[in-house]
């Protein structure tokens, strides 16, 4: 076997060429590069939302590395000897809290890094959520990308965990009370609750183990899992090739866009620096989590108006809304449904919805094809409605998590607000679903209308007979294609209950249940315009004109050679 380059290829002369040759002779990296360098990526602003999450994560790692150089994850008690901040001088506190103060006040740039880190965490979660919204509403989770959707939802949960474990590290009053709430929720879990609390805290709350434990989770376990899943996520994205929005020349069998090198890669790299820059600006100008104002953890004080980070608000709101009457004692054992339902069942349902939705939709659509062309949200009204209903529930819970601030800022009764949110939590999503579905159907009808009759031009023409019409401009073929190129799925058709000989068919009931769900999805639908309909509409325009002449016999029929479309 020859270990030199094949003789047919000239010996590389440049430094880059030599390096490439060196690498390729050992790794066959050329095969990979051949696929990736000019790989085509579709271009749309909404494809950048996931990058916000990805790049915020990179910033989290960079700033987090800085912080670990100075943070000491110990709960050993110490007296704070530094002069600044003056309010903390001489206070008894944990080493974790003292090192947080120290890195803020004594390490130059330390406070900046802390603030960049905290803002990045908030933007990271926001990036994940808006990216998921894009993926959900455009149907990008459909085959073959269901797996990547599952990876994404798992990363959302890991993101929550990363935020929670990091938030609790400084061991201040606010985060300590947050941990205490966690302890209360854990204790409510039937049978194993008390033991789970001991498992987490290494004894009774708060104990002296929780900060080092959270630290290990926060800087090792959770980020390692996230990194691994980000790798899987991006690998699958490249493997499946990116989805694209519908439009002229964009089909299910191609990708239209710009090649990775140079335009796409440059934009992506630039985007990283823009996101990092914005986060630096936020960290530099917007104070966040001034722990020295709260003080070290002490089980007694608590501050009113305290809010968790935004992505935890829905859990907080859920806890606040649940009426307390639902704690029961059964056979001497306490079942705290007033905690279990809001803190375990409701988030459980929300995440289960996210995990199973792609499979449910595939089932009720009865569709086993691959989908690489995105849906316009209006073209799948029930999915869009369900997504908006989900967000409505999430937002109502998050607002309920701020009900005390709403009460103080708007001088309202907190009890009234709570009752309104309790009602809205049930009514809001239903209403949101209904109205969203109606809006989607309306937009689809508008699409039909535009395709059939064209755009209004605002140009009014008067005929010789005195009749006024507005001239409509027909759609160009690109726009028409955008508005007609979709599938309006019909509800599932199922086999009858009995076969030809009248024998009951197995599995009929289950089929019927799926059919019912399928009807819920696709009963109301707007079909795309067909060429025949468009042709009919054109001739129909002529017909209308004649008819108007009949219905208005007093007018002289005028036939101006005006281009008429309705």
């Amino acid at each position, binding site marked *: 076997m020859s270990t030199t380059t094949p003789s047919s290829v000239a010996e590389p002369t440049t430094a880059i060429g030599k390096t490439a040759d060196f690498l390729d002779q050992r790794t066959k990296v050329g095969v990979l590069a051949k696929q990736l360098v000019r790989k085509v990526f579709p271009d749309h602003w909404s494809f950048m939302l996931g990058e916000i999450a990805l790049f915020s994560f990179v910033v989290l790692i960079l700033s987090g590395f800085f912080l670990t150089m100075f943070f000491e994850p110990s709960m050993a008690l110490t007296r704070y000897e530094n002069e600044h901040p003056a309010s903390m001088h001489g206070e008894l506190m944990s080493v974790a809290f003292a090192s947080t103060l120290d890195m803020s006040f004594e390490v130059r740039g330390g406070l900046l890094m802390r603030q960049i880190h905290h803002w990045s965490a908030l933007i990271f979660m926001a990036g994940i959520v808006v990216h998921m919204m894009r993926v959900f509403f455009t149907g990008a989770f459909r085959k073959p990308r269901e797996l990547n959707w599952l990876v994404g939802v798992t990363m959302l949960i890991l993101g929550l965990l990363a935020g929670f474990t990091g938030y609790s590290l400084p061991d201040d009053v606010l985060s300590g009370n947050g941990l205490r709430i966690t302890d209360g929720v854990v204790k409510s879990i039937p049978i194993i609750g008390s033991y789970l609390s001991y498992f987490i805290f290494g*004894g009774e709350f708060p104990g002296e183990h929780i900060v080092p434990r959270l630290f290990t989770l926060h800087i090792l376990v959770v980020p390692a899992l996230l990194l691994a899943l980000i790798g899987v996520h991006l690998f699958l994205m490249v493997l499946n090739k990116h989805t694209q929005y519908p439009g002229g020349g964009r089909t299910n069998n*191609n990708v239209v866009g710009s090649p990775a090198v140079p*335009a796409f890669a440059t934009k992506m790299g630039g985007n990283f620096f823009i996101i990092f820059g914005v986060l630096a600006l936020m960290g530099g100008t917007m104070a966040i989590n001034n722990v020295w104002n709260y003080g070290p953890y002490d089980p007694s004080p608590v501050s009113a108006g305290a809010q968790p980070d935004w992505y935890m608000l829905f859990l907080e709101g859920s806890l606040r809304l649940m009426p307390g009457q639902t704690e029961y004692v059964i056979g001497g054992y306490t079942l705290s449904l007033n905690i279990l339902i809001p803190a375990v069942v409701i988030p459980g349902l929300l995440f289960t919805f996210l995990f199973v939705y792609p499979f449910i939709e595939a089932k009720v659509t009865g569709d086993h094809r691959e989908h690489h062309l995105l849906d316009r949200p209006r073209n799948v009204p029930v999915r869009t409605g369900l997504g908006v209903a989900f967000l409505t529930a999430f937002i109502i819970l998050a607002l309920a998590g701020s009900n005390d601030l709403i009460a103080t800022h708007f001088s309202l009764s907190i009890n009234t607000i709570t009752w309104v949110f309790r009602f809205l939590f049930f009514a809001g999503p239903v209403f949101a679903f209904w109205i969203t579905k109606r809006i989607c159907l309306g937009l689809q009808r508008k699409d039909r209308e535009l395709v059939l009759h064209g755009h209004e031009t605002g140009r009014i023409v008067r005929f010789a007979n005195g009749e006024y019409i507005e001239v409509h401009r027909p759609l160009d073929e690109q726009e028409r294609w955008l508005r007609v190129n979709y599938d309006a799925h019909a509800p599932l058709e199922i086999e009858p209950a009995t076969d030809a000989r009248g024998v009951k068919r197995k599995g009929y009931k289950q089929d019927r249940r799926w059919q019912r769900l399928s009807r819920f999805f696709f009963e109301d639908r707007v079909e795309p315009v067909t060429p025949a309909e468009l042709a009919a509409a054109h001739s129909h325009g002529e017909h209308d004109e004649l008819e108007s002449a009949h219905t208005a016999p007093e007018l002289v029929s005028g036939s101006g050679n005006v281009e008429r479309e309705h």
Partner: protein
Amino acid sequence: MSENQNPQPSRDVTPHGGDGTLAQADRFTDPGVPEHKPRLTDTDPRSAKRNERLIVLIFLISCLGTVGSVVAYFAVRPDGTTEGVRLSTLLLGVAMAVSLLGIGIAAVHWAKTLMSNHEHVEERHPSSSSDEVRAVVANQFKEGGKDAGIARRPMLLGSVGLALALFPLSIAVPLVSSVGGDWNVSKFRHTMWKKGTRLAYDPSGRLIRAADLTVGSVAHVIPDVPAEERETHHWITEKAKAVVLLVRLDPRDLKRDHREGASYDGIVAYSKICTHVGCPVALYEQQTHHLLCPCHQSTFDIADGAKVVFGPAKRPLPQLPITVDDEGYLVAEDDFNEPIGPSYWERLK
């Protein structure tokens, strides 16, 4: 002519059944990728040159930002005060942002104005492997299975499964047995209050005389322990259970105690730990005698046995029985007679 003169009813929504999928022939044809529109920089070399200069300028501004951040680092030495630290953070952050945003904006502008934006089209291939490949792989597994002789030697399969299922125990048992400390969850039942423990102000530790409390006054209370003991972890954990809120009511306002005879002359002492999920219940409203938890707004009426009047808690706050000793100091008569704080499964056992 308006739309409602249209004699035909709207056929947009096909409510029941109907054929959803249309024949392919009945569809419009794809007009293809829209014609490429050249940008100004593609057609006008002067514009391209102008943008090139602009991009260079933005990269240079980024360099200035980096230099500025280093200057800010050395020039602005924070004196440790909050204002000094804020100023240093502001300057470092803004300079860093200029440095980073400069690179980002210049790069994106470069890509958008000067790099080719011609549409490229790439074919997709099915995500699944071909039938031949699948057949080969299935065959390989079959042969591998044959080589291993799994089908003929079921005992092997069973024993390897058993060994693999058991081995994590060698790590899990030591871990789980140690990770929960002593696993003695009955500690939830008791606090450090006992008969004769004096009540002290939190955090000063000063003792409380009944006579010093005026009607309507509120005190945050801890058990009286030596000052050194209050500097230990043990204390923080005990304090987390033992904190009490003391309120002196007009005895005529006090409808009832949660625990028979636990109050002293209108002075009631209730656990400060919420029975919902354990936040300190700290907001007292003097007019209504309501105690509000700032975390989830559970509201307790301390004139009426601390019963829940609103919010997600179910149970009243446990009451600490108090009296005064010979010297007039408030003392506990006993520990709480129920576990304080959030409910848990075996709370009543």
